[in-house]
């Protein structure tokens, strides 16, 4: 009895958000019955999948009290590298490995700049965001990169047992994120470093190592998202993933992750992704102007964070 009560209070925020999502679903269905069709639901999940995958990483980064602005550029860079490698070797495996290697490298650089170089993560990732985007245009000359291997395309468009492959990847990543944050020592370290970095150091935690690993996880997850986005598009584009990092940050913040670090939940972020995707999808479906969609998204951010800070008092 006592235990369930506590549980409820702790996950109240997520439950509330799920409620909002459900209300939204009802509204959209009334406005356009197409909303509840199998095709559209599957579409929502696919749209949400790559944001969710990178947002899991972003949540970890925000919990350690940092931020990663380079996610959008990394989506582009890893996708392009994957596309190039696939084009030249025709090997699915090599393409995937190459793309993820780019993610690891960029994550490592961000992490080292931030942890060892003592740069704020904001600055470190701002720099890599700019550099990567510039490189993308230099290397491609502004053209898109296409490949011939059908299997590579399937990463973003294929199905496995009737379920879209991106959705399967998303589920695996979510489980990874939840387990990491709630069941492992490393997860405790992530919250500790974000809660109070100096006290963590004084407790014997290798703070720098934790930060670098979190940025590497972020890099890997973002490059996976990059593979999905690129293969959905059908070509590597130097303009891909523009503002993608903002979607991830929005999802995390709407899901209750504190920008000052130390607080946040993967589950919250996922509900945040769901809310934003359902919102966007429904608005498009009922024919709302895209510019109004942006306005509404902004309002949602303010309302959800305000509700959060007010309810804490």
């Amino acid at each position, binding site marked *: 009895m006592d235990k369930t009560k506590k549980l409820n209070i702790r996950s109240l925020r997520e439950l509330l958000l799920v409620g909002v999502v459900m209300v939204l679903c009802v509204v959209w269905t009334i406005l356009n019955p197409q909303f509840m069709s199998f095709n559209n639901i599957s579409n929502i999940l696919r749209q949400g999948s790559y944001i969710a995958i990178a947002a899991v990483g972003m949540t970890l980064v925000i919990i350690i009290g940092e931020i990663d602005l380079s996610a959008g550029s990394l989506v582009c860079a890893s996708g392009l590298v994957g596309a190039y490698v696939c084009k030249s070797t025709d090997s699915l495996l090599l393409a995937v490995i190459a793309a993820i290697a780019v993610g690891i490298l960029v994550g490592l650089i961000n992490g080292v700049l931030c942890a060892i170089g003592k740069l704020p993560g904001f600055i470190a990732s701002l720099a890599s965001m700019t550099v990567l985007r510039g490189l993308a245009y230099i290397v491609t000359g502004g053209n898109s990169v296409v490949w011939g291997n059908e299997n590579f395309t399937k990463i973003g468009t294929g199905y496995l047992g009737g379920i879209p492959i991106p959705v399967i990847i998303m589920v695996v990543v979510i489980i990874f994120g939840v387990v990491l944050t709630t069941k492992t020592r490393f997860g405790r370290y992530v919250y500790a470093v974000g*809660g109070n970095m100096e006290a963590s150091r004084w407790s014997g935690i290798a703070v720098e190592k934790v930060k670098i690993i979190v940025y590497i996880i972020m890099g890997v997850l973002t490059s996976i998202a990059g593979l999905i986005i690129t293969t959905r598009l059908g070509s590597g584009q130097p303009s891909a993933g523009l503002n993608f990092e903002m979607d991830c940050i929005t999802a995390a913040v709407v899901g209750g992750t504190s920008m000052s670090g130390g607080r946040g939940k993967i589950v919250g972020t996922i509900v945040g992704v769901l809310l934003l995707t359902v919102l966007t999808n429904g608005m498009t479906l009922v024919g709302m102007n895209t510019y109004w969609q942006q306005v509404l998204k902004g309002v949602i951010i303010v309302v959800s964070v305000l509700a959060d800070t007010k309810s804490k008092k």
Partner: protein
Amino acid sequence: MSDAVVKMEGISKAFAGIKALDSVQIELRKGEIHALMGENGAGKSTLMKIMCGVYAKDSGRMLLENENTGEFEEVEIKTPLMGQKAGLSMVFQELNLLENMNIAENIFIGREPVKKNGFLDKELLTERAKKELEKVRLDVDPRTAISELSCAQMQCVEIAKALSFHARVVVFDEPTASLSEKESQTLFEIIKELKAQGVCIVYISHRMEEVFALSDRITVFRNGKYIDTVDAKDVTEKDLIKMMIGHELNGAKNCGSEFVNQENVILEAKNIKVFPNSKPISFKLYENEILGFFGLVGAGRTELMRVLFGIDTIREGELYIREKKVPVSSTKDAIAAGLGMVPEDRKGLGLILGMSIKDNMLISKLGQMKSGWLNKGALKDITGNYIKELSIALRDEEQEVKELSGGNQQKVVIAKWLAMTPDILIMDEPTRGIDVGAKAEIYQLMRKLTQSGKSIIMVSSEIAEVMQVSDRILVMHEGDITGEVTAEEATQDLILQYSFGGANNG
């Protein structure tokens, strides 16, 4: 007929359903130094914050003397600015200054003089600030940035700020916690001057000597309730402690030197340099010993501890633990070598305030465990044991550690290290900001630990504490060890002499 300025009656206040103040009263008089005493969480600071407009009261009323008519009028102080305008100011325990702005801007923030054209009148601002600084004897250019000031100077700025409002009541909350002996003396003189001018001083402190030296009247609170107001000259320290904790403390001297095993050197520091230009120092720590480090502010005690614990890299010298040389280049190494550290800055370095009690107790222990997976059952056994052993008062171990009182927070830090089963525990100012009852518990705990085979290095700025707790005392001065005394031969005079540089030039 009485010379009161403020009367508060029937004040109650609850935080998140927990009563912090239960219908308490107080009367503050002109030109008196009125000490508030009580354990942490007794409600002293809360009451004063209500008076100054930081918190809103739930019920009760507050009367303020009207300076013109001499009549008492009921007032509602809703914001700190309203409080300041009514002459009620508070110098906070954690100073509330804007570090990047200068002194003058801080004193007159929100009340900056402006020229006719709407721009800031900087000359007038500086001039006014200079006058205020004279009152607190701070001879610094008012255009100096706060970040360049020492702790004591910042406090003077806070006081100047309070006085600039034509203060009638100034509240000091643990003002000497971060001051050296000399700085404290200056502060006391300022306080006495204010008193002579008819200002009422409210003095909140855990330090008995100060309270007796300064105050005219003392009001005691316990668990949010008003206990009594007494004349300082009518009571003894014992009476006060009894009023504060509700029963008498068995404060037997904690000396247990008979347990110290001098045959067994646990830790030996050889030729360690604390500051770049200081003399290399060496010392030994024996099994079952509490080794006290005393020194004035700036003596290098905390710096030495940081080196021992691997926070700062060792400049020169070696460290041996159980006769084995240990590399101390990181905190991880120090912990692996069997050291634990209860830092002076409990909230900034000892705890992760936003995490649960449980997580705080386990955060170091996790590094010692073989598996990276959390075994919730085993972990719960560990926390449960220490919560019981140290009798930590809590509602739920999932509760955030910041909700605990200072004493219980300190116990959580200690539990964190006990879980690591260290051989040596460094405790830097282990009872700072902790109430009398919890203090005694911590002393007893320290003794218990040494009896069970551990050794403790304790750093303290309170002579009484060093003398009461340590088996042996090392006195530091400017990075050098200038004296060593055993518990038996220790006297306040001797220790102080050493702390000023030795017996000859003391």
